[in-house]
């Protein structure tokens, strides 16, 4: 907390370092990085989500072969993978920020965060494996 007048004039003002000094409340440590990831994935999810929704709508009346063919095609496989990864990263940051607001015990917050991370990793792995299987076999 020494000489805030000097730090205020540096680029530190733009970074999370300044927040840590504000009224000594401490910081959430990864807040800025998570904030950026949230926005980056949000922007990516606009086209990816619309593509996914439109594709699923076209698949509604079709059979298994069409769905498998879509996920086996390079464009379909890549864009659905990106949709899943961006979506899960976005969900991870979002759920963690909800937990941060409503779980007020540090140990419970840590445990809940670990569970959510584990779930996201498993879901991402399972989804990617499923798409890769279709993509590589066909």
């Amino acid at each position: 907390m020494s000489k805030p007048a000097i730090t205020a004039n540096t680029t530190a003002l733009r970074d999370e370092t300044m927040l840590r000094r504000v009224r000594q409340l401490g910081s959430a440590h990864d807040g800025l990085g998570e904030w950026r990831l949230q926005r980056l994935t949000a922007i990516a999810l606009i086209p990816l989500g619309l593509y996914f929704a439109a594709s699923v709508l076209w698949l509604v009346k079709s059979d298994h072969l069409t769905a498998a063919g879509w996920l086996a095609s390079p464009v379909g496989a890549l864009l659905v993978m990106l949709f899943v990864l961006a979506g899960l990263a976005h969900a991870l940051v979002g759920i963690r920020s909800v937990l941060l607001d409503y779980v007020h015990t540090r140990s419970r917050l840590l445990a809940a965060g670990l569970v959510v991370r584990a779930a996201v990793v498993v879901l991402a792995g399972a989804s990617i494996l499923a798409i890769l299987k279709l993509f590589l076999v066909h």
Partner: protein
Amino acid sequence: MTRPLNRPLSPFMFPFWYRFQITSALSILHRLTGIGLAVGSILLAFWLIAVAEGGESFASMHVFLVSPIGMLLLFLWSVAFFYHLCNGIRHLAWDAGYGFELRTAYRSGYTVLALTTLLTALTWLFVFFA
């Protein structure tokens, strides 16, 4: 390790301390739909696995999806998807510094609700009549 975070907390203000406002209601709805969509990613993973497996798995996934519970879930997810998409764009505009005026915030809020209704309706009209 188990020490409470000694910081100002964010209580659940909405029904008890705040009167109803569309802005705060939409904000809470954004979180709720976000959580709903995150839960939906479990079904998405199962669906992708069912497509990869084919045969029996895909058939039983199809049976589940066209069952009343499956259809209800799909409907709720379509609402959540379109709402979170439209309101997310509203949030990105705020992040960029636009639309903070009260009138604009209210108007964009009602626009999001209208667009959500329209897109959901179009989606299900397509599903049932196209």
